[in-house]
Structures are given as structure tokens and as C-alpha cells.
């Protein structure tokens, strides 16, 4: 019955290693089963977010008011399509905050769940599938972004930087989408990284340049053409443009649709690579 007989018979998988996911493998089905786990994570970490409101307050005071009065006095009203500098950077700050929260939540916490406390591995030993694990992780990031950006938006409104309630809510939804469109590819990258040492590079070559050249602080048309075109390729620029349309209250339908489509495409691609990355890592 038992022997060490060697057999070269191959199964349906053919080649060794992990097969490509089918469409069904990409669709989460059991995410609600993970709610209790993520509630425990939230209970452990919510205290760190109590001071969230300080960031927009500091930024708006220093840049919106301080730098803004200087810009407004010298550039004239037509420089920013008639917007005050405060009104111009407010949506930019909202969008970049969503991006920073998304990247932050998709680097060290994800690495930790693979490497240090290994919770993904204990999830993978149960009926949960990779898409469920990825989906719940991403949903948690979305929840974090929603909380942070809601507080942020409240401060922006207090400074009079949000045109209307509807526009504010639309901008909030946009930046949550923008956030997960960053989180999904970042999760995909983290799943493929052996060590957290690479995060410094991600921050320096990815996060900081995207933050600075996203069009949040000045129109990217001010940049050399090449850099301006590179900036247009980043999802953050689309998010900044889109949320600005909503907070300012001047929506260009076709442009908005273009930005939305771009973000959804990035999200879907990020999702695919997150699922394949997790599948590989969890099979090790």
C-alpha cells in the first residue's frame, strides 16, 4: 500500500507551482467571516487615529492660509482658474491623505501578517480562499481611509474649503476609490517582497514623488512636459483632479468619467496581482 515508488504522472495542473487564478478564484465569497477578526484589529489600533484631525489642521494653516495668502496676493485670481490657493489645495490634501493612508496600511501591516504574526497563514488553513483574505484586507484599508478622510473633510469644511455637502460626499467617495486603487497594487507588491527593507525605496521613489507631483499643490502644467505626462499616468493625479471637481463644484462629465475609469482599471489590475501574489506566498 505504501512505497517510495517514483511516478512522473502529472495532475491537471501540469506544470509545478501555482496555477493562474480562474475568474471564480478572483471573486470573494466569504468576506463576512473575517469581520470579527478585523474588528479586533481595529479595537487594537483605533487610539492611534484619535489625532487624525491635527494633520489637515496643520497643513491648511501652514499651506492654505500661510503660503496661500502669499500665492493669492502675488499670482492674481486667474492663476488657479479663479480659485483661492486654499480651495485649490484642499482637495489635493484630501486625495494625498487617502493615498498615504492606503500605502501605509498596505505595507508594514501586510508584511506583518505574512511574516511576523502570520495571521494570513492561519486564515489560509480554513475554508477561506485567497480572494476572501485579500478582499477583507482591502475592505479594512477602505474603512480606514473613509474614517481618516471623513475627519479631514470636516476640517476642510470648517475652513470653508468645500463648496457643497453633495460635493463633499462625492469627493469622499472618490478618495476612498483612489485609496483602494493604491492599496491593491501596494498589497500585491508587499506580498512579493521578502523583507520590509524595500519599503524605504517604495516611499522614496513612489509615495513622495507622487505626493509632490500629483497636482495637489500646483497645477502640473507648471512642470516640464515629460514630468507632467508622467504625473498624468499616476492614479493620484486622476484622484486629485476628480476630487477637486467635486469640492469646487465644477464637474466636467467626460473628464470625470475618464478619471474614474482610470482608477477602476488600476484597482482591478491591482486586485488581480494581489490575489496572485497572495496565492503564491500562502502556498509556500
Amino acid at each position, binding site marked *: *500500500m*505504501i*512505497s*517510495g*515508488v*517514483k*511516478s*512522473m*504522472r*502529472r*495532475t*491537471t*495542473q501540469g506544470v*509545478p*507551482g*501555482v*496555477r493562474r487564478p480562474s475568474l471564480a478564484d478572483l471573486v470573494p465569497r*466569504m468576506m463576512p*467571516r*473575517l*469581520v*470579527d*477578526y478585523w474588528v*479586533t484589529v481595529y479595537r*487594537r489600533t483605533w487610539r492611534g487615529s484619535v489625532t487624525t484631525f491635527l494633520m489637515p489642521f496643520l497643513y491648511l494653516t501652514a499651506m492654505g492660509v500661510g503660503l496661500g495668502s502669499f500665492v493669492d496676493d502675488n499670482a492674481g485670481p486667474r492663476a488657479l482658474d479663479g480659485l483661492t490657493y486654499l480651495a485649490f489645495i484642499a482637495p489635493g490634501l484630501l486625495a494625498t491623505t487617502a493615498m498615504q493612508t492606503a500605502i501605509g496600511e498596505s505595507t508594514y501591516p501586510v508584511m506583518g501578517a505574512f511574516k511576523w*504574526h*502570520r*495571521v494570513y*497563514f*492561519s*486564515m*489560509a*488553513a*480554513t*475554508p*477561506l*480562499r485567497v480572494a476572501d483574505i485579500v478582499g477583507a484586507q482591502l475592505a479594512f484599508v477602505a474603512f480606514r481611509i473613509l474614517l481618516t478622510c471623513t475627519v479631514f473633510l470636516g476640517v476642510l469644511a470648517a475652513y470653508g474649503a468645500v463648496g457643497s455637502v453633495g460635493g463633499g460626499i462625492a469627493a469622499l467617495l472618490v478618495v476612498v476609490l483612489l485609496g483602494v486603487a493604491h492599496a491593491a497594487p501596494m498589497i500585491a507588491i508587499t506580498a512579493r517582497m521578502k523583507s520590509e527593507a524595500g519599503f524605504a525605496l517604495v516611499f522614496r521613489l513612489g509615495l513622495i514623488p507622487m505626493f509632490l507631483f500629483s497636482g495637489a499643490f500646483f497645477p502640473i502644467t507648471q512642470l516640464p512636459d515629460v514630468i507632467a505626462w508622467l504625473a498624468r499616468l499616476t492614479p493620484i493625479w486622476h484622484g486629485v483632479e476628480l476630487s477637486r471637481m467635486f469640492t469646487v463644484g465644477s464637474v466636467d462629465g467626460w473628464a470625470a468619467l475618464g478619471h474614474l475609469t482610470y482608477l477602476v482599471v488600476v484597482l482591478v489590475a491591482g486586485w488581480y496581482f494581489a490575489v496572485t501574489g497572495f496565492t503564491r506566498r*500562502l*502556498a*509556500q
Partner: protein
Amino acid sequence: MMISARGLRKSYGGIEAVKGIDVEVSAGEAFGFLGPNGAGKSSTMRMIAAVSPVDAGSLEILGMDPATHGSEIRARLGVCPQEDSLDNELSVMENLVVYGRYFGLSRAEASSRAKEQLAFVQLTERAKSRVEDLSGGMKRRLSVARSLINQPDVLLLDEPTTGLDPQARHQLWDRLFRLKQQGVTLVLTTHYMDEAEQLCDRLVIMDNGVIVAAGSPLELIAAHSTREVTELRFGVGDNESMAEKVADLADRVEVLPDRLLLYTDDGEQASQAVHDRELHPVSSLVRRATLEDVFLRLTGRTLVD
């Protein structure tokens, strides 16, 4: 048949960890994978746990193919991993309930089963303790309790007592023995021979990715060792030369740096014969052959790192 594998293979980064093994485990059986580190035990277990895809060969668990029915298989398996993957910051009870939820249990059902399992592994008084504060033995028992939350048909244990003190080991063995009596199929890996003899009805010895022997502990001893072993100590440096003088007294003589091992069916007789030849060992000891003798014979005494 709970588990049925034919020609099972697995490679990691060009290194073949499992080189075509055949294994069958039937319901209610306690089955062991023995082998030195790097023998391929854990890789095999991960394929059986339906988390690591099979490279080649066929594998059926509970009558299903893990490539297509991984989720359904895992729903009926209990997995107790080698490294405790408990949540250190949560309480004992929370660990069980959160895990139970992964199996789709309602909160009420998860917590009632959690209480049951805590009683079973004798951790009821520690239900509210943070996992961080538990001893190694308690953590391992909690891991076992967690792996039972879905009332599995098959329980997989990867080196369940590694790193535990003797008291904790015996306590865990006792719990595993009870599970076996309740009809749970146990599949475990170990490199402790006494553990294998205590728990396993049947086992395979793996070395270098292949199965080198299979059977019950007694069958293995009968097939690969003599009934008894006489251990003679002649003092350092003398063992080698003495080996020739006693070679004919046993089926096989093994020279170790500090002693000679005479494999024979009658250890007392061999011991007497040594004395009759006026050879005077510093000490001599007759013992029954154990699985450890089989294991060392088949997998060698060289360290595998």
C-alpha cells in the same frame, strides 16, 4: 480512505522536497510521518492541508481533489501548525471565536464550541488570559483546541510537542489519545520516536524526500532491527578495537565514539558471551530495540542541516 496520495511531488525553488511518495490513511487511524529535518514531512503536510499545490502525482483528501475543492477540504480538516500562529494580543477565548468564525460558525456557536474545547484541553480557567501570558505547553494546547473548533474529520499536527517539557508533552499526548478514541483521524509529523510509538498505529519514515520504511512501530522494529540491543562501553579509544572481538556475537555491531551497540535477539546471551571471552567493558546494558534504532539505521547518524 481519508487521504490517498500517489507519486506525490513538491519542489521549492528548484529543490525537490518530496520526490514521489505514496501514502494512504484510513478513517480513525493515527498516522505518523517520521524523518529528520528536511526529509519532506512538512511539505507533505502542507499539501495534505490543501494549502500548497501538488506539483505532480495525485492527491485525494476526504475523497476530493485539493486543486479544485481546497475550500471544501479545509472546512473538514483541523490544522495545528508547527509554529503557533495564535494571536498573542487577544485572549484565549477570542482566539477561538475569531477562528471559529472563519469556518462560518455563528458567534454563539463559535463561543459554545470554544468553551467545550477549552475544557477538553484543560484551559477553562485561562479563557480570559491574553495568549502572550501562556506557557509554551498551554499555547500548544490552545492551538490544538483551535484546530478542533470545526469538529474536523482529520486532525493534522506538525511536530506537536517540539519544544515542550516532559509534563506538557505527556498532557498533550493524553489529549491526542482521547481524540483518537473518539474516532478522529490523526496525521502527525514528528522526529521524536517515543511520540511515534505512543501515538501512531502506522507510520512512514521519510528521508531526503522519499519513504524509506512503512508499517506499525512493532513491524518496523521487527523488519529493520533485532529484538534487543546490548550496549557495551569499553572506554574512549578502545571501542573500535573491541568491535572486531565481538563481531560474531551479534547480527550487527555498530561502533559509536563512546560505546558499541550489539544488535541481537538475545541481549543477555550476548552480554554473557562477552564476559566469557574475558573482555571487561566498563559497563554493559541490555535493552529492547526501539523505533529510534530503526530510524537511525535507515536515516543515518549524520546531522542534516
